[in-house]
């Protein structure tokens, strides 16, 4: 084999999570009372549009979670040796973005380096901006750059539109055939927004995403779309690689939070007495420590542990991955208290309701009462808190990396990008592209998550029914 698959800890957990989500989707689809609120989410234009954007991020993150180590080309056929560099399927797909490395900074879509150097020209050595090795290398003269960029962008838009129209045609054909109506009335009701799902938003968002994607691909083939960083690496590549880190932190942390919050919160509310006292004590103690400090203290300790056992990690990626996992664990352990308190309050109310009393009178066991009567009635709170927490966690990563207790410095993350680039604003001329790229991508992900979360909350929270 020319490669050996590598399953990092977070990879395994992410795919386990994906499996869990798919199983949950299958379960929900079979129960009409569970799928009704999701149908309500899908009817909201904002929420569906946001979900589409999120889906793009998730796909990139998943592709970036399939890791492997390539076989060294000079290794003997009998005993294969593999590179220490851990790559992912995503790296393979974007190929040249990763390997096209310049010398140092260059502006977005530039064909020259950011700094002046001595270059040979007509036999004499002059001080000028040298040409980039890859960015705009196909151009002969500087004045060809702008027309070339515009041409590539237009071709990209056209291609994106073409694919969009094709997809729309397929959608129309499928819908009209399924509902046995003519194309014209279906188009009319689509344009009016009269469909049972937000058709206009969906088509618009897909078309926009396709165009953006196509333009980026077109431009990235000849240029560094977001420029290059200090060591000459393509900023677009770094930004895209950071998506996985953000997603891992946003999802795996919740995975840690959930069991703690559900078990402890429901137990405290349902059993009351000394169980309640102990659990309340534990979460008051955890809550009273300022969050960042507790995370910082724990991360420092994990760092010491990792540095004390360097022999356990065969690659740098494995070490960075353990630190990422530890960060998720720590953030999960410090952030379950809010949800636990909420679940405790709700369980306190539920346990006095007639049907729970009746179940108890029939001699139903505690475990059964909790799983059949209490948990299904607090599940909406769990779901709302998962989607609401996600965006906060993605933002927290950047702050923690700035404090120095975030992900490993060698890992691609928006926090590390911002941290590394913020001092470059003092340069003349300003190096603005790294910060802009990181903030733009982070903003897009968080905004999409927030809009989606609002949709989910409005659909699931029974108190919000009929309210704007």
């Amino acid at each position: 084999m020319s490669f050996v698959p590598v399953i990092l800890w977070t990879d395994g957990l992410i795919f386990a999570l994906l499996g869990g989500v798919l199983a949950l989707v299958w379960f929900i689809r079979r129960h009409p009372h569970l799928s009704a609120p999701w149908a309500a989410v899908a009817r909201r234009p904002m929420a569906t549009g946001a979900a589409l954007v999120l889906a793009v991020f998730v796909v990139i993150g998943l592709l970036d979670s399939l890791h492997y180590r390539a076989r060294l080309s000079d290794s003997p056929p009998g005993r294969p040796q593999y590179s220490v560099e851990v790559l992912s399927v995503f790296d393979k797909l974007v190929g040249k973005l990763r390997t096209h490395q310049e010398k140092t900074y260059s502006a977005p879509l530039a064909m020259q380096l950011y700094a002046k150097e001595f270059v040979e020209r007509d036999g004499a050595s002059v001080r000028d901006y040298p040409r980039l090795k890859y960015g705009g290398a196909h151009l002969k003269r500087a004045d060809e750059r702008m027309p070339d960029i515009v041409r590539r962008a237009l071709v990209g838009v056209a291609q994106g539109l073409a694919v969009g129209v094709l997809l729309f045609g397929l959608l129309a054909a499928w819908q009209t055939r399924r509902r046995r109506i003519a194309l014209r009335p279906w188009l009319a009701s689509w344009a009016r927004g009269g469909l049972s799902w937000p058709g206009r938003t969906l088509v618009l968002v897909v078309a926009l995403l396709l165009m953006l994607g196509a333009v980026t691909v077109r431009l990235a083939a000849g240029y560094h779309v977001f420029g290059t960083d200090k060591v000459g690496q393509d900023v677009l590549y770094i930004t895209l690689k950071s998506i996985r880190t953000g997603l891992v932190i946003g999802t795996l942390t919740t995975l840690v939070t959930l069991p703690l919050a559900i078990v402890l919160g429901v137990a405290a509310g349902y059993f009351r007495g000394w169980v309640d006292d102990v659990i309340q004590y534990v979460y008051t103690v955890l809550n009273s420590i300022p969050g960042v400090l507790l995370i910082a203290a724990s991360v420092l300790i994990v760092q010491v542990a990792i540095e004390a056992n360097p022999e356990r990690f065969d690659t740098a990626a494995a070490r960075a991955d353990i630190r990422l996992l530890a960060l998720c664990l720590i953030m999960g352990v410090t952030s379950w208290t809010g949800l636990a308190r909420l679940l405790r309050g709700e369980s306190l109310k539920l346990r006095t309701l007639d049907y729970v009393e009746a179940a108890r009178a029939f001699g139903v066991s505690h475990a059964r009462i909790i799983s059949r009567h209490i948990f299904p009635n607090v599940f909406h709170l769990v779901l709302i808190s998962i989607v609401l927490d996600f965006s906060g966690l993605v933002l927290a990563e950047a702050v923690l990396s700035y404090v120095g207790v975030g992900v490993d410095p060698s890992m691609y993350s928006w926090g590390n990008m911002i941290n590394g680039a913020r001092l470059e604003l003092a340069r003349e001329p300003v190096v603005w592209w790294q910060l802009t790229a990181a903030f733009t991508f982070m903003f897009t992900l968080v905004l999409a998550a927030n809009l989606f979360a609002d949709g989910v909350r409005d659909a699931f929270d029974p108190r919000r029914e009929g309210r704007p």
Partner: protein
Amino acid sequence: MLSYILRRLLYAVPILIGVNLLTFALFFVVNTPDDMARLQLGAKHVTPEAIDRWKVEHGYDKPLLLNERAPGSARFTDTIFFRHSAAMFAFRFGKGDDGRDIGNEIRTRMGPSLAIALPVLLIGVLVNVTFALLMVFFRATYLDLWGVVVCVVLMSISGLFYIIAGQYFIAKLWNLLPISGFAGGIDGFRFILLPVLVSVVAGIGSGARWYRTIFLEEIGKDYVRTARAKGLSEVRVLFRHVLKNGMIPILTGVVVLLPLLFMGSLITESFFGIPGLGSYTIDAIQAQDFAVVRAMVFLGSFLYIVGLILTDISYSWVDPRVRLR
């Protein structure tokens, strides 16, 4: 009332003990002083002598919980736990790695922290309440709808962006205010303006949206309908009735934060070079100064618990229906 406060104070003691035990476990049991010394001394192959010397210098050369060799009560007092953890209850924090007394640092750095944090809180609440009231006044119109969307957009922007953009545009490009720094007295005014402005703007998104929900909840209640039925104008209803009752959750939310203001804000202070407790903490984390981090954890929890007690007292003060016994 007095007995209630006393009881709450007593209840705080086990929580502080819990915090203390947790930090003790984190810093000394999971992670032995030897590990700390190795991290601090840096090199991969440090000699055992160097580690011992470091431990003696920082007072970490004692046994953890029980000193078998010491006579009398020193068996318990001449230990790491007593000297470094139990001593915190007397607010004796010892010395940081730079040799300075932590208690002293805390006292001098509280002022600058407060100079930033207090205006941020007060102006922030004022601005957020104003925006929230405007949105509620125009509720169910496009103004309200777009107000909420703007709030979501504002809260989706990273806090770091507000700071970096504020420093770059206001201080560097337009030269309106100093980029960072601090000075005492009246000179300090121009230094605190930018951090306060940035922090307030960064908080508008989540703050205004949160207050809007509170006011909307209040506006659906019966007494509001009665007030309208009496023929009061919408403005009067909003300001005399809704605002007054909505202030109860707002005020109690603010009171719990009051003591924590002393701790300052980690990020803001370190970006703007404010010599407060926030930048002190961040420097300690980056220098891996465990003694300072431990002290700040204890101080933070103490102030949080004080905040909780103040919240309960303020409840009974603003809401006559609540009686503390």
